[in-house]
């Protein structure tokens, strides 16, 4: 199974919708652990992607992904803008020249994005960030294709691993970002960035499964 540019555009639109629908939940999480703006930031970013869809759809896949990163970065600003921006831009670099993507490409993109976020933010798994979703999701995806599972199946195990990773942030204490400066270090609350990152994996996986 192969992923085309149209698939990518569809996934992006669905991520935008997913984020838009979860305003209260994400805002509440960032209010409990940070400064309350993560939903507004992400929603602004993905609204921009949807607004620009006509310009995006004429680009080759690597340029498209890079452009998404640039748009997120410039529209959102602050921490999550540059973190998500870095992830998409780094992901675009490992698929240079490709006009379709296979499961190996997806795996390498996840790894590159993860590495980008980790380098940029100097955080690691267990620090109660979006990394706690992406790290297990990326690893699970890679392990799946190494065991010769197909894209459909790999996406599914990745989603499940991401979901568990996201939930695991609830019991973590923050060591980076705003939550770190709270007395309770955000303990007892899921990290909002871990949730928005999970939404991306979930939307992608569900799309693949339903295709």
């Amino acid at each position, binding site marked *: 199974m192969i992923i085309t540019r149209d698939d990518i555009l569809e996934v992006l639109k669905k991520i935008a919708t997913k984020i838009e629908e979860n305003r209260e939940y994400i805002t509440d999480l960032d209010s409990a652990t940070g400064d309350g703006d993560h939903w507004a930031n992400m929603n602004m970013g993905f609204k921009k992607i949807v607004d620009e869809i006509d310009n995006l759809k004429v680009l080759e896949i690597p340029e498209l992904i890079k452009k998404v990163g*640039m748009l997120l*970065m*410039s*529209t*959102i*600003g*602050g*921490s999550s*803008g*540059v*973190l998500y*921006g*870095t992830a998409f831009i780094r992901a675009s670099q490992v698929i240079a020249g490709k006009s379709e993507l296979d499961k190996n490409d997806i795996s390498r993109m996840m790894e590159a994005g993860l590495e980008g976020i980790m380098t*940029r*933010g*100097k955080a690691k798994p267990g620090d109660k960030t979006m990394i706690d979703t992406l790290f297990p999701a990326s690893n699970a995806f890679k392990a799946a294709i190494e065991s010769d599972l197909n894209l459909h199946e790999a996406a599914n195990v990745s989603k499940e691993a991401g979901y568990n990773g996201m939930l695991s942030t609830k019991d973590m204490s923050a060591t*980076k*970002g*705003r939550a*770190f*400066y709270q007395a309770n270090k955000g303990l007892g609350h899921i990290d909002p960035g871990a949730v928005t990152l999970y939404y991306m994996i979930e939307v992608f996986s569900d799309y693949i499964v339903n295709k």
Partner: protein
Amino acid sequence: MKKIINIADEVVNDMIEGLVAANSNLLKRVDGFNVIVRKNKSDNDKVALVTGGGSGHEPAHAGYVGEGMLDAAVCGNVFASPSPDQIIEGIKAAEMGKGVLLIIKNYSGDIMNFDMARELAEMEDISVETVVVNDDVAVEDSTYTTGRRGIAGTVFVHKVAGAMAEKGADLAEVKRVAQKVVDNVRSMGMAMSSCIIPAVGKPGFSLGDDEVEIGMGIHGEPGVERTSVKSAVELSEILTSRVLEDLPFKEGDEVALMINGLGSTPLMEQYILNREVHRFLTEKGIKVYRTYVGNYMTALEMSGCSVSLLKLDEELKELLGAPAETAALTQRCKGVCK
């Protein structure tokens, strides 16, 4: 919220336009970006100095763009780092073929965004170096920082590195003196009231009628202690002694001193504080070579101040004294005007 603004979301744009309108001989804006650059690039190619950060700290940083100081300043939203695409525009508009020094205050948002911008610049074959200013001795980690925060001492970096670049030094030399300033500057502040971020519309924190917070950051990040209002004498000792112990500054040292107002502390009070800091330093045998008193790096209308000391050697003295012409700081040359 009583503010002289139009739409809260547009304060940065409107501020930039007002700044350029007031200084159209010195400054211009990069079209479509929140980037201020010198109007006339130096004829002689020189190392370009680029900085930036959240807005709300005016005159920092756009007020320091001009001869003898910065080549570009990138303005983020109020108290939020500018994004890498804005920063890269500043880098491209400023650079003149001899490389670019990025002066970054140590806030995680700034660090991440400037880092990314540097990568983008390197992809375009622009050589970029960075220094990270972390002069605030108050707290080790803070709401927006890992490690110390960068505050008013940053202006000394702009001044010294700017003078070095103006002399035609190469990127390594400019970075060396910038880093020398970072290594030798320490600051400590305190706040007496909160400020209001226009888009938020209400104060970020509140202090009792008789309360001040020692060590508070320039975005209202927590400091080290809430205490009752102190006399200028006590306050000068609290702030200055923390600064002195840190480097440490020693008897016989020569320093540049900056008394910085955070926004609504009258100049009268800044001068009174300056009097006490001078006395305290004299007692400790430290000689003040040059003093700056005023609102150099503010926090909107926050009331409060900071004390910064830069330990000087002959090189730093010369560079600090060199001429400059910017919206917020102009120094005349020592010679005569022909």
